[in-house]
């Protein structure tokens, strides 16, 4: 009775992709996929790309070649990978949901039924969340260094735009420098050390596009004995960062971080694709906002960090509730751009 062809449950293999398993965000992504797999009683295959689009696509294709129908949730390495992945899934007869990263001129509905949904969140808001808390901690004045991810990542660019959007209202805040640290803790450490040499005491805040880079920058500032004067903001709510927010071991540190939990995202996307595959969702009846939806951002700051930490960020009933309503975290359609 649904418009799209359906698949028997036993013919399904659940698949997800990660860059590597040593990144906390990815680890929680894997955890979410596995939790859902357990609930559904289906095996989960993990494709690890090690930062290579080629490997990522090859892995998905390899699983397709095993004969089962793929139900995929992916946070693709690069937006430009999506067409190739969509092709693979189409040929396989499976279903997929894509999170965060997609070419701007693409819409799931245009691609076809096998591309069930695209989920995004407001990167500007995410960047703003960290920036606002940072500026507040700095008392509205001082110098900030910013560490974006890789230069041509849209995700990173959006977050940086959010940062800039916030600080333009604070004439006493200067953005001292912007040096990409490639999402990498070690590079962030090295880069921050150079920036310390350049700006020294002028640095009052460090804004990073991701918590891994924040941890690197944090270590560099600590080693330079500046930890008491400098505030940090990251993104992703990595447990160690939430720890820092709760414990504030260095007295005056404010870590502010927004939240788009890998756990929830992976489970949600996988579930939507699954329901489409087995016919629990009729794709033709999905609203545009459901096929290209926006997910809420929780802004974690020292004020709410303790609560966040207490339940590990996940309400124990969340997964069961999700299975009832896979679109429950959805707050709207496509992201519009920075406000104001």
């Amino acid at each position, binding site marked *: 009775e649904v418009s799209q062809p359906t698949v028997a449950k036993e013919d399904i293999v659940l698949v997800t992709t990660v860059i590597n398993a040593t990144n906390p965000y990815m680890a929680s992504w894997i955890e979410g996929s596995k939790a859902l797999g357990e609930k559904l009683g289906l095996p989960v295959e993990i494709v690890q790309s090690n930062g290579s689009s080629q490997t990522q696509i090859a892995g998905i294709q390899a699983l397709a070649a095993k004969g089962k129908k793929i139900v995929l949730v992916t946070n693709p390495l690069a937006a430009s990978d999506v067409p190739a992945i969509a092709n693979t899934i189409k040929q396989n007869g499976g279903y997929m949901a894509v999170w965060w990263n997609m070419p701007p001129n693409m819409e799931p509905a245009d691609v076809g039924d096998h591309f069930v949904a695209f989920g995004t969140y407001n990167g500007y808001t995410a960047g703003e969340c960290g920036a606002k808390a940072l500026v507040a901690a700095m008392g509205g004045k001082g110098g900030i260094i910013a560490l974006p991810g890789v230069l041509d990542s849209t995700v990173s660019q959006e977050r940086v735009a959010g940062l800039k959007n916030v600080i333009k209202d604070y004439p006493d805040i200067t953005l001292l420098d912007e040096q990409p640290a490639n999402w990498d803790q070690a590079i962030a450490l090295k880069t921050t050390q*150079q920036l310390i040499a350049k700006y020294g005491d002028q640095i009052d805040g460090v804004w990073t596009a991701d918590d891994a880079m924040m941890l690197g920058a944090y270590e560099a500032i600590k080693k330079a004995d500046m930890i008491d004067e400098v505030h940090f903001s990251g993104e992703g709510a990595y447990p160690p960062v939430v720890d820092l927010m709760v414990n504030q071991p260095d007295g005056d540190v404010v870590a502010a971080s927004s939240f788009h939990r890998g756990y929830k995202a992976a489970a949600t996307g996988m579930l939507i694709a699954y329901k489409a595959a087995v016919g629990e969702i009729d794709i033709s009846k999905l609203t545009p906002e459901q096929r290209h939806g926006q997910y809420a951002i929780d802004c974690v700051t020292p004020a709410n960090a303790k609560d966040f930490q207490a339940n590990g960020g996940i309400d124990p009933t969340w997964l069961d509730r999700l299975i009832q309503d896979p679109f429950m975290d959805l707050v709207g359609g496509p992201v519009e751009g920075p406000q104001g």
Partner: protein
Amino acid sequence: MTFLTGTGAASGCARLNWRSGLAEVAILAALIVVFSILNPTHFPTLVNLNTILNSAAIPVVIGVGASLVVLTGRIDLSVEGVMGAAGMVFVLLSANSRETADIGWLAYPVAIGVGLALGAATGLVHAFAKVPSFIVSLGMWYVGLGIAAVLFGYEMIPFLSDEAAVAWPTATTFGLPNSFLLALCIVAFGWLIERYTRLGRYTRAIGNNEGVARMTGIPVAAYVVLIFAFAGACSALAGIMGSLALGAGAANVGVGMLFLTLAAIVIGGTPLGGGQGGALRTVMGVLILSTLYNGLILAGVDPSIQSGVSGVVLVVAVIAAGWSQRAKLRVFK
């Protein structure tokens, strides 16, 4: 490997001498002058000197081992993998936030032992299965990264708990960062090996003409294994230093170190064909690149063209150093 041959080994050998080292000094001086003009307030300062030296420490340590490998005419691409594996072993065997086994100071020798073993494995496979070092060490790069990933598991980042140890590398003694002083000790050790031991001299001989080395009765395979093991140990130490710098375990602590070190070796004037040059020259290469990296950021050069500027400087430096050796019928690969 022929493409690695800088000067024709077979063709009666254009000898590198102290004078050709002047080109590197001149390049470093030129960079310092240029960056001092571009950023007179921050570049020529003691603080910045320490920043540069500190960032040079890890590649210098790697470079000592890597230079010896290159002196034999071989190449070690496994640097980043070995750093990851050894670094992760070190962190997990030290007091850390994951509370894995803490074996105290023994974590240092054990981690270095891991690097030594990986290096020796590279050397053994290369020397006895006769597979080019290029490919064995490339494979070992992946193996090392894989070991680090397996050790990391799916759990949280392990943070080092020993604050004193974590603070040591960047702390200063006699006004210089400890990390750099440690690196200098390793350089001195490497230099003594190169100059005053059979291992070092045979390394040069092997690099100059391996066939002759064999006919002379030098046990080439054994020396090659030793050298790869030593290089592995150097990378492992670098992995430990990287982990201390991060204060945490990360599989990719070595990210970017391979090309940096290779470029430093080439710029320093050690021809990749082997037989000439050595650790001291590599130190110059590392200093040039570290200064360049630091200077580009301090001068505010657009990040998207930094890799291009580095590439151009690399090529110009190598051209300048080798310009006088250009000759009709010169072999260069």
